């Protein structure tokens, strides 16, 4: 990796990532890429987030659903760990709480495949500095 020495370098990385994301969203087949984030701070992991992460990666591959699964930090909903955020292309992200393997399976089959919401949604209850 070449060292970053200018504002342009920073902007380039930002743009690259943004493009990657918008590419995902504008893909020809809108069903093609799903973005999933698993809350993997200590509390999430203690509640089993690692197993859910592996389960999602394995199962999505097995079932031939192209998706990007990443780990992320604490979403704040400790009472509902493990938490998983699913963003279908062109839609608002939805956070599911109390995700077990069975629930993860249901999320894949119902929500990701059919857009059908399942029980266990946690409404987002905060604003971030990006919100206008």
């Amino acid at each position: 990796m070449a060292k970053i020495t200018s504002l342009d370098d920073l902007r380039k990385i930002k743009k690259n990532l943004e493009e990657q994301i918008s590419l995902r969203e504008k893909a020809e087949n809108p069903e093609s890429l799903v973005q999933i984030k698993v809350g993997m701070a200590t509390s999430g992991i203690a509640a089993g987030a690692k197993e859910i992460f592996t389960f999602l990666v394995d199962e999505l591959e097995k079932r031939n659903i192209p998706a990007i699964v990443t780990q992320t930090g604490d979403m704040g909903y400790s009472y509902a760990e493990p938490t998983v955020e699913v963003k279908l292309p062109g839609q608002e992200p939805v956070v599911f709480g109390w995700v077990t393997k069975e629930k993860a399976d249901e999320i894949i089959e119902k929500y990701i495949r059919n857009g059908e919401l399942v029980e266990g949604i946690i409404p987002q209850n905060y604003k971030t500095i990006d919100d206008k």
Partner: protein
Amino acid sequence: MGTYKYHILVCGGTGCKSSQSTQIVQNLNEEIKANNLENFVKVVTTGCFGFCERGPIVKVLPDNSFYNYVKPEDATEIINEHIIKGRRVERLLFRDPVTNKPVTDSKHINFYQKQLRIVLRNCGVIDPENIEEYIARDGYLALYKCLNELTPTEVIDIIKRSGLRGRGGAGFPTGVKWEIAAASPGPEKYVVCNADEGDPGAFMDRSVLEGDPHSVLEAMAICGYAIGASHGLIYIRAEYPMAIKRLKIAIKQAEEYGLLGKNIFGTDFSFDIELRYGAGAFVCGEETALIHSMEGNRGEPTVKPPYPAVSGYKGKPTNVNNVETFANISPIIIKGPEWFASIGTEKSKGTKVFALAGKINNVGLIEVPMGITLREIIYEIGGGIKNDKKFKAIQTGGPSGGCLTEKHLDTPIEYETLVAAGSMMGSGGMIVMDEDDCMVSVAKFYLDFTVEESCGKCAPCRIGNKRLSEILDKITKGNGTMEDIELLKNLCMVIKDTALCGLGQTSPNPVQSTLENFWDEYVEHIVDKKCRANKCKDLIHYYIDPENCTGCMACARKCPVNAIAGERKQVHVINQDLCTKCGTCLETCKFNAVYII
């Protein structure tokens, strides 16, 4: 995509459930069936919307309509009007309290501004192990701006004008601290990040380090530039392996990208960061003890002044800030001090992260603007008290904070107001207690923690806290006298006035605040030999009610000390001399025959 055109989300939080949200779901489903819409609409129960005051809450997707105070009989109208005819049910829409106009989109409801994420802006959003995701969210832009467009004095001035105060407990103005460190003679100076987080139940700092480690690294480099330091140290407890792992990855990536190390952004500013591990002693979070611990000495505090900003690590000027304090820096540089100062109250700016725990429905990590009330935190964000019990107290400020009550619920949360109410901001732990908690026992619990964690260097803390704990123990055992209360009060004052460091100076807070707010409970323990929460074992007795007892033998079989006598189909009796008051019989009895006096 998808088979369903509409989703109806119904709040399944405790508050809404108790006001019939289950019935609403049932009615909606019946209406859907009656209209043959099963493949068109789906009803889903969700977690708490946090808007319990206006429950039950129903939200319709995809148009995001937000209905409040919904009744089971409204189901017909929601289906007929909204789903079939596509017209919103005006009378159920949430109305803006100011303009009284219906708000049709839940995103525009002020309520959701109750939580504002500045410190946690990237937590749960980015992958903490990928520096590019941080950069994509304007990461390291603030550092760039400082190094290329601002002088160190200007950086300090921005932080001062923002009004940011230390989030590690004391609330010292951060810009002023940086200014003192900048004025101290160099060239060898240090930036230290205090990631000791010793308060039991607190996990704000851990969450920031695990979810957004670069936000702290970037801010430490900015601080280094501002005060003229080129070395940073993060003091973190070894019990935080995940945070340590992510920090290590983050430091390595930042070095590879040239954002830490020599000649950052090609300028002549260089800054490196190392980790130092603590063994998890509470007192090592105190900055002088922390510095001694980093130097390889015993983690004991020393008298201030000299302050670390003048003479700290290895006797050199050292700026110590808390993790959360650092996490605020970059947004302030990018969005400006005026933006930051517009959030919060006159004396306490910005937001605060709290770890909400105890007898509350939505245990979790919250970030709220300063000035919010405890009522809003407990009942709206926290979703109210568990099992619909009665609120009794909320403990803020960690082990050396105080217990606040009903009468403080509407006080805006600021550094000063919390101190005036007998507690403090501390690092941000909040533990909610209900009617089943005995406040004398609570005071004793916290005291025992400080006794355990006292380093023993000064007599008031070492001996005084031990005596406080002994007197509390005596009271909870039913052997206290009214003179003991006077003794407690005096001892508290002496310890506060004479202890060497912040630990001893604040450790009597739980005793003082419970004496102040729960005087009756102390007197009951002493005079009536009663504990109203039935928590103090020496003051309660288990009995079996002969009216209700069916002689099923269940309790007798479960009793671990064989203290229950009685034949099958005969009333059982507890032998008070043998009973250890473990409560197993109460849990076991299916006939409500066991009771406590």
